[in-house]
């Protein structure tokens, strides 16, 4: 059953359309990856699901209930009980004047679900994320980057949400620490059965974690597929992303990554080596193929023939 259903969601900020008619669903207990370049709208989408960004059009349904159009303090709190977020920069996401214990108790106090047991639960969570209990009275600035991200993760999971949105949670970390955090997230997801939306620009990390992955370009989902997405990319943009991944040994397909997205038709057409007149005419829709892959490209059949 799908936990989260996003139906043609659009988020506009003045002239800029950050998220453009995105439809996605996340099942209970599933880990959905979301990749794309900076500015593709991945983070805005994540924030809209949390209720941090108001949608301009479209609808988000969470656990069968539509999100309110305008959040009040109480509806926001209700949403926060269901959806939590882990940010890239754990340090700026924390109150520097709160001890670790207070940082972990805070969401519980706000939810008011664990009266009197907050401290004990907070200490249990220090164990679960692998920080010693004597750290309870320390402050975020006393932690290393990896330890801070562990704390950020504990704070997201401590209220037992249904969905955790991770926005580039490991991008700022060294590889050795990155591996620890990825393993921690994987174990927590297995133990708690929480659904996760994992936003990242590192394809290898996403491939390692996600069952299904959506690729965003300029506010739209251009391709969505299962674990074979990166082995058999179909959309020209996904192909370019895979080829550009360092060490993949792929040939660089485009040398036009600095070109801005097109304003009409397919936004990718200026960079696309397969662009034709049909790409100028209209925005391609996501079409599901026989292998349950969704791709939004006018030239898909021709490209397959060319290769």
């Amino acid at each position, binding site marked *: 059953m799908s936990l989260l259903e996003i139906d043609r969601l659009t988020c506009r900020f003045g002239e800029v359309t950050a998220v453009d008619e995105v439809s996605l669903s996340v099942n209970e207990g599933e880990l959905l990856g979301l990749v794309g370049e900076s500015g593709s709208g991945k983070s805005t989408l994540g924030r809209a699901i949390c209720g941090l960004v108001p949608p301009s059009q479209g609808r988000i349904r969470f656990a069968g209930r539509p999100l309110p159009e305008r959040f009040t303090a109480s509806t926001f709190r209700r949403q926060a009980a269901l959806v939590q977020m882990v940010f890239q920069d754990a340090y700026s996401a924390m109150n520097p004047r709160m001890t670790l214990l207070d940082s972990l108790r805070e969401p519980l106090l706000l939810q008011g679900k664990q009266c009197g047991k907050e401290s004990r639960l907070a200490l249990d969570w220090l164990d679960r994320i692998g920080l010693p209990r004597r750290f309870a009275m320390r402050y975020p600035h006393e932690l290393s980057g990896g330890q801070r991200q562990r704390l950020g993760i504990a704070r997201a999971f401590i209220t037992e949400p249904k969905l955790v949105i991770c926005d580039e949670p490991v991008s700022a970390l*060294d*590889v050795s620490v990155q*591996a620890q955090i990825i393993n921690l997230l994987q174990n927590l997801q297995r133990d708690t059965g929480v659904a996760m939306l994992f936003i990242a620009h590192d*394809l290898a*990390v996403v491939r*390692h974690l996600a069952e299904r992955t959506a690729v965003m370009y300029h506010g739209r989902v251009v391709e969505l597929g299962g674990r074979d997405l990166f082995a058999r990319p179909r959309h020209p943009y996904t192909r*370019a*992303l895979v080829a550009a991944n*360092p060490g993949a040994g792929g040939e660089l397909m485009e040398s036009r990554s600095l070109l801005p997205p097109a304003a009409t038709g397919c936004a990718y057409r200026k960079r696309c080596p397969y662009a034709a007149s049909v790409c100028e005419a209209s925005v391609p829709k996501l079409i599901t193929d026989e292998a349950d892959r969704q791709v939004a490209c006018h030239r898909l059949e021709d490209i397959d023939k060319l290769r």
Partner: protein
Amino acid sequence: MSLLQVRDLHLHIGDQHLVRGVDLSIDAGECLALVGESGSGKSLTALSLMQLLPSNARLEHREWLFAGQDMRFVDEAGWRKLRARRIAMVFQNPMTALNPTMTIGRQIAEVINLHTGKSRRSALARAVELLDRLGIVNAPRRARQYPFELSGGMLQRAVIAMAVACGPSLLIADEPTTALDVTVQAEVLMLLRELCSDEGLGLLLITHDLGVVKDMARQLAVMYAGRIVESGSCEQVLRDPAHPYTRALQAAMPSLGGEAQSLQGIAGTPPDLSRQIDGCAFAPRCPQAMNICPRRLPPAFSPVPEQRVECWLWEQAR
């Protein structure tokens, strides 16, 4: 003959002993990759090679040759002539490496004007030419813009343009693509590769991404706690890493191809560099540590010719 040859480089800043005996050698037209975690001393090694260090820094070395010149005898005035003209550097964050109140073109032209004595007008023309060569569309217009008006990928190209403006023979690039998107990263790396092969530029590439290393470098040096613990040809070291730390780095990285394996983090933290370290600095985190490891610094062993590893595990194999 090597373009750059450094032996036993040590750097102290205050009571911290941050670079602890580094040997480096780079040939013209060749790329040497220096990898390691943050705090391992990669960037400080780079800054030492540019002599861009704080005033309380103390730099020691046994030998330091650059293009046949003995660097012991170069004073600060000599260094000012070397920087940009012979040795140049590209930093990780182009936004902080550029002056926000000057147009891109003028910043590049300033370097040319200062170091080659060209007139300001012809320096500006050269700057536009460089921007164009580095793949910036509509270079004359971009040259008149300020850093905030350009995207990260364009800024990094501008910084590279500035670095190569005076035709240096050694380029030090400190995580030049870490802040960029993968597609842009691929292009910037290709540019650097072209500069190496076309102009015979020696490149010291500092990165933490083993994928980037694979695409770029022929030689690889792995740094941990101020020492190069393993070095050799990139192909050999990545295929058959000899040091437990190199192996641990590899096991920690997810890959895009092959089967998804579980990732191995490296437990523990790098050592405190204000203390003296008697043995191998990695010993407290090493799964294969033996009695001797924390007591005595391992000498360099060669599992195969051209590969060099500082690890006691290779003593018997010798």
